[in-house]
C-alpha cells in the first residue's frame, strides 16, 4: 500500500508522458483523475488513522534501508499536498498550456512529496527530496511570467546547493553516529534510538548543514532571498505547490532530523532558532506591507507564516508542535487560496499590480468574498484554520520564552495591516479605469477549487481537534525527546 501511494503518481506520470504526446487535454484529464484518486486514497488512509510502515534492506553495505513509515503527520501533509495539487490544476485549467508536460511533472513532484513524508531513512529521504525539487524547477521555468526563467534558475541553484549541504550533513551524521555507537546506518528508526550526544563541533556542523538545507526550503528568515522573486514570477498554480505544499517539507525535515537525532546541540541552538523564527515572522510581515502587488504580498506573507512554524519548532513544546502541524496545514490552505485568487485574476489578465487593479469587487463580488475569506484566514481570524495553529504556537512559544513568543505575536497586528491593505487595493476602492468592464465572476470550476479550500479551512478552524488527534501520536513521539532538562539556555537570554 505504501509503495502504491508513493509510486502510483510517478508511474502515472510516465504513462501520461509517453501516452499523451500531442494530446494536452487528455493528459490534463488523466492527471486530474490520478491526483484525485491519490488524494482520496491518502485521505482514506489518514482517516484510518494507522501508521503504515515497510522496512527492507536496500544498500546493506552502507546501512541504507528501504524504510518507509507514514504516520499521521506525514499523512496529513501528504493529503494536503494532493489536495493542493487538485486546486492548482483547477485554477490553472485553461491558463496552463502543454499539459502533456505539466501533468507528469506535477505528478512526479507529488510522488516525491509523498515519498518524502514517508521516508524513514535519510538517504531515501534525500532521494525523494530531489525527486520533489527537480520537476518543480521545470514547472517554474517553463510556465509563469515571461521572465520566470531567471527566478527559476536562482531557485534551482539555491535549493540544489542547500540540498547538497543537507546531504553532506546527513553523511556526517552517519559517520558521527557510527563513531559514537559502532552502528553505521542511515536508518532513521535506528538513529533515533541513540541520538547524538554532546555539543561538539561536529554535531554543530551537522546541525548547521541541516538547518541550511531545510531552511532554504521553508524559507527561514535570512535564507528566504530566493522566495519572493520565485513566488512572484512563477505561475500561481506552480506556486501553490511550491509555497503551500513543498515548503512544509522543509519544516518536516527539521522536525524529524534535528531535535530527535541530536537533542543537545539542537536544544542549545533552540533560543536562537526561536529568535530567528520570531524575527523572520515580523520581517516577512513588514515586507509584505511594503509590496505593491498582490503576488508580492502573498509571497511575503507566506514567508512570514512559515517562520512562525520555525518559532514553534524550536520552542519544542506540546502546544507549539501541535500548533505547528496545524499551521503547516492552515498555511498551505490559505496561501494556496490566495495564490488561487492571484491565478484567477491572471486568467482575467489582471496581474495584481496595484496600479492595474482596484474596485474589482463591483464586477466580481463572489471572487471578492472568497478573496476576503482567504485574507481573513491568513490574518488569523478565530474559527478559521490559521488561528488554531497560530494560537497554539504562540501560547507554546510564550510558555517557553516570553520574549520571543511576544515578538512573534506582533505578527497578529502586522498581518492584518498587509492583509486588508492588499484586499482593499485590489478589490475595493474606485474602479480602476484600466480594468476592462467584461470580467466574469467565478465559474463553476473556479468555485469548486475555492470551495475545497474554504471548507477545509473552516473544518480545521472549527474542529481542530480532528487534526490534533491525527498528528497527536507522531508529535507525542517526537516530544518524547524531553528537552526541558536541556533547555537551560532559553530563559538565560530572556
Amino acid at each position, binding site marked *: 500500500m505504501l509503495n502504491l501511494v508513493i509510486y502510483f503518481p510517478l508511474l502515472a506520470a510516465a504513462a501520461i508522458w509517453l501516452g499523451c504526446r500531442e494530446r494536452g487535454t487528455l493528459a490534463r484529464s488523466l492527471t486530474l483523475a490520478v491526483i484525485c484518486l491519490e488524494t482520496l486514497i491518502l485521505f482514506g488512509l489518514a482517516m484510518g488513522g494507522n501508521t503504515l510502515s515497510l522496512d527492507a534492506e536496500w544498500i546493506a553495505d552502507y546501512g541504507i534501508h528501504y524504510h518507509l513509515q507514514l504516520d499521521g503527520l506525514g499523512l496529513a501533509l501528504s493529503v494536503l499536498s494532493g489536495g493542493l495539487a487538485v486546486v492548482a490544476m483547477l485554477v490553472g485549467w485553461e491558463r496552463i498550456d502543454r499539459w502533456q508536460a505539466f501533468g507528469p511533472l506535477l505528478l512526479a513532484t507529488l510522488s516525491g512529496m509523498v515519498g518524502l513524508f514517508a521516508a524513514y531513512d535519510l538517504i531515501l529521504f534525500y532521494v525523494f527530496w530531489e525527486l520533489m525539487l527537480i520537476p518543480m524547477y521545470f514547472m517554474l521555468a517553463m510556465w509563469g511570467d515571461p521572465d520566470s526563467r531567471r527566478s527559476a534558475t*536562482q531557485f534551482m541553484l539555491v535549493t540544489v546547493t542547500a540540498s547538497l549541504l543537507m546531504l553532506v550533513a546527513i553523511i556526517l551524521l552517519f559517520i558521527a553516529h557510527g563513531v559514537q555507537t559502532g552502528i553505521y546506518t542511515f536508518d532513521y528508526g535506528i538513529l533515533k534510538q541513540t541520538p547524538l550526544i554532546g555539543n561538539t563541533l561536529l554535531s554543530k556542523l551537522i546541525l548547521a548543514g541541516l538547518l541550511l538545507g531545510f531552511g532554504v526550503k521553508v524559507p527561514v528568515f*535570512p535564507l*528566504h*532571498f530566493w522566495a*519572493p522573486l520565485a513566488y512572484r514570477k512563477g505561475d500561481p498554480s506552480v506556486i501553490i505547490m511550491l509555497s503551500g505544499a513543498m515548503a512544509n517539507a522543509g519544516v518536516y525535515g527539521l522536525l524529524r532530523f534535528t531535535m530527535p537525532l541530536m537533542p543537545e546541540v539542537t536544544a542549545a541552538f533552540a533560543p536562537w532558532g526561536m529568535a530567528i523564527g520570531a524575527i523572520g515572522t515580523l*520581517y516577512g510581515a*513588514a*515586507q509584505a*506591507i*511594503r509590496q505593491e502587488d498582490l503576488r508580492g504580498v502573498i509571497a511575503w506573507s507566506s514567508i512570514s507564516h512559515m517562520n512562525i512554524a520555525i518559532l514553534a519548532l524550536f520552542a519544542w513544546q*506540546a*502546544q507549539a508542535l*501541535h500548533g505547528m502541524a496545524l499551521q503547516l496545514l492552515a498555511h498551505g490552505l490559505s496561501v494556496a487560496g490566495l495564490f488561487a485568487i492571484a491565478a484567477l485574476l491572471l486568467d482575467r489578465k489582471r496581474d495584481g499590480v496595484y496600479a492595474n487593479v482596484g*474596485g474589482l*469587487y*463591483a464586477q466580481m*463580488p463572489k471572487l471578492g*468574498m472568497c478573496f*476576503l475569506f482567504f485574507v*481573513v484566514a491568513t490574518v*488569523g*481570524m*478565530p*474559527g478559521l484554520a490559521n*488561528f*488554531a495553529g497560530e*494560537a*497554539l504556537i*504562540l*501560547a507554546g512559544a*510564550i*510558555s517557553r520564552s*516570553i520574549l520571543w*513568543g*511576544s515578538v512573534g*505575536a*506582533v505578527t*497578529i*497586528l502586522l498581518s*492584518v*495591516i498587509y492583509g*486588508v*491593505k492588499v484586499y*482593499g487595493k485590489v*478589490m*475595493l*476602492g*474606485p*474602479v480602476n479605469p484600466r480594468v476592462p468592464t467584461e470580467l466574469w465572476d467565478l465559474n463553476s470550476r473556479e468555485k469548486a477549487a475555492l470551495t475545497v479550500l474554504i471548507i477545509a479551512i473552516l473544518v480545521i478552524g472549527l*474542529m*481542530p*481537534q480532528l487534526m*490534533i488527534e491525527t498528528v*497527536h501520536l507522531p508529535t507525542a513521539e517526537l516530544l518524547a525527546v524531553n528537552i526541558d532538562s536541556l533547555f537551560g539556555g532559553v530563559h538565560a537570554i530572556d
Partner: protein
Amino acid sequence: MTDALVTLPMMHHLLWLIPCAPLLGALLIIALDGLPTRAYGVIANLAVLVSALCVALLWLSGSWDMPVQTAYEWMHIDNWLLDVGFRVDRFTLVMASVSAWVGLLIHLFSTQYMRHDFGERRYFAYLNLFVGGMLLFITADNLILLYAGWEIMGLCSYALVSHYYTKDENVYAGRKAFVTTRIGDTALAIGIFLCFMQFQSLNLESIFQAAPQAPTGMIAAICILFMLGAFAKSAQFPLHVWLPDAMAGPSTVSALIHAATMITAGVYLIARTHVLFDLVPDVRWWVALVGAFTALYASVSAIGQNDIKRILAYSTISQIGYMFAALGVGGYSLALFHLAVHACFKALMFMSSGVIIEIYHHDHDIRNMGGLHKQQKFLSFAYLAGSLALAALPLVTASFYSKDAIIAATYTADHGAFLAGLGLLGALLTGVYSMRMYFMVFTGKARSEIHDYKMTWAMKLPLGILALGSLCLGFIQLPDSWSFGPHLLLPWLEPVLTSVALPEGHAGEMLELLGAAAAVIGILIAWPLTKAEVRSGRGVGNIGFLNKALYIDDLAKVLVIRPFLALCAVLGSVIDGLLLNGVLVAGVRRLMLNAAEVVSRGQGALVSRYVLLMVLGLMLIIGYLTVQL
C-alpha cells in the same frame, strides 16, 4: 429574586443559540444565493430575534446563576484544554440583553433604512456576524473563545465601515479601524497567552480562582495587556483615532458599533476580568485616569465638530471614558449601568442621525441643517430625548443616574478630586455639544433643502423604544444616598461585580449637585452659542484645534505610521536589497562568473594546450615514480 416566572430547565442547553443564531444567520445569508433582497433582511432579523428571545428566556426562567454549556471540545493538547463553552451569570446576562435587544432594534431599523441601498445582502450578513461575535464574546467561558468573538467584531467593523467601498477614504477608514483595534488585539492575545503560561488553563473560572496565588508582576503584566486591548477596542485615548473615521459606514452600523457591540466590548472585558484587576489596584488606577482624561478630551473635541456623526463619535469616546473611569475605581456595576443607558441613547441618536442625513441629502454638516422640528415631529422628540440623555439632564434622563454616580465614585480613588474634576468638566462640555447639535439641526430656519422622508413603523418602533429607554432606564437604580425609589440593579449585581463605596455625606451631596449643575449649565450655554453661530456663520466648529481633535490623528500619522513604513522600507532595502540580494546573491554570481571566466580561458578549446597539459601531467607522474623508486 430566584423565583422563576417560567421554568425552563432546557435553558442550559440552549445557551449556544445566543451567539450562534446570528452567526448561523450570517452563514445562511452568505450561502443562500438568489433570494430576493428583502429575504436576507428577514433572515437577519429572525436570527437576532432568536438570540434575543433566548436572552429573554434566561431572564424569565431566572437562571442567571452560572448556567454553563459546553458545546464541544475545540482544542485539547495536554493542559491546553479548550472547549467551545458558554457561560452566563448576572453580569453577562445584562450585557447580553443590551447587545441582543439593542442589536435587534438596529436590525429592525435597518430593514427599512437600508432598503434599496447598496449591497444589502452583504450588509446584513456582516451585521448578523457582528452581533454574533459580540454575543460570543460575552458568553464565552474561556479566553480564547472570548478572543474569537473579539476578533470577529474587528473583522465586521472593517467590512461594515468600508461598506461603501467605491470611495478610497471609506476603504481607508475601514482599514484604520481594523488595524488600530488590532493593536489592542495583539496585546490581548499576548495577555491571554501569558495567562495560559501562568495558570495553565484558559477557563475564566479557574483563572479567577488561581489568580490570588499568582505573582503580582505577572498579573500586572496581564492586566496591562488586557487594558491596552480594551483601550484600542473601546477607542480610548490615544487609540481612539479610528473611531471618528469609522463614521464612513452606514449610520446603522455606527449605531451597532457604538451602542450594542464593539466599543462596549472593552468595558466588558475589564469588568469580566475584574478579579485580576482587583489584585493590582495600581494598574487599575491607570484605567481610571485614561478613562477620565478621555472623557474630557473627547468632549472638547466633540465641541469643535460640524459633522453630525463625528460629534456622536466623540461623544461615544467620551461616554466610554466615563465607563473606564468607573472601572478604574472598581465601580464595575456602575460602568455596566452606564453602558446600558448609553447603548439606548447612542443607538437612538445614530439611527436618527442616519435619517437626518438622508433628509439633508447626504450632507453631514450641521451648519447646513436646521428647522427640522416642524417637518419631523417624532424624530425631533426622539432626538431630543437622546440629546438630553447624553447631556444627562438631571432627574428626567437615565444617564443622570448612571453618569453622576460614576463621577462620585471616582472621587473615592487616589487623586480622586482630580479624576472627578476631569469628569465634571467633561459633563459640562457634554451638555454644550449635545444640545448644540440638537439646536443646530432641529431649531431655527432650514439652511438647506429638506427632503421628504417617510418613516415606517419598523423605524419608528425602535426609535420609540430606545427613547423611552434613554429617559426611564435610570429609574431602576436611583442613587444610593436617596432613601426612596428602587435600587434594583447594583445590589442584584453585587454577587458578581463588587460595587464601589461612594463618598459619604457632604462630599457626596456636593458631587451630586455639581454633576447636575454641570449638565444644566452646559445645556444653558449651548443655546446662546448656537444662536451666535447661526447668526454669524462662524462658531466653535471653525476652531481648527478643536475640529481636528487636538491634532492627535495627524500626530499619529507623523509619529507612528510614517516612521513605521519607513522602518519597513529601510529594513527591506538593507536586509533584502543590500545584504541578501546585493552582497550574497550578486556576490556569489560575480564570484561564479569570474571563476568561470578563468576556467573558460584555461580551456580555450586549444588541443595543443591540452596536450601540453597532458605532457606536464605525465612528466609529473614519471617524476614522482623516479623519486619513489
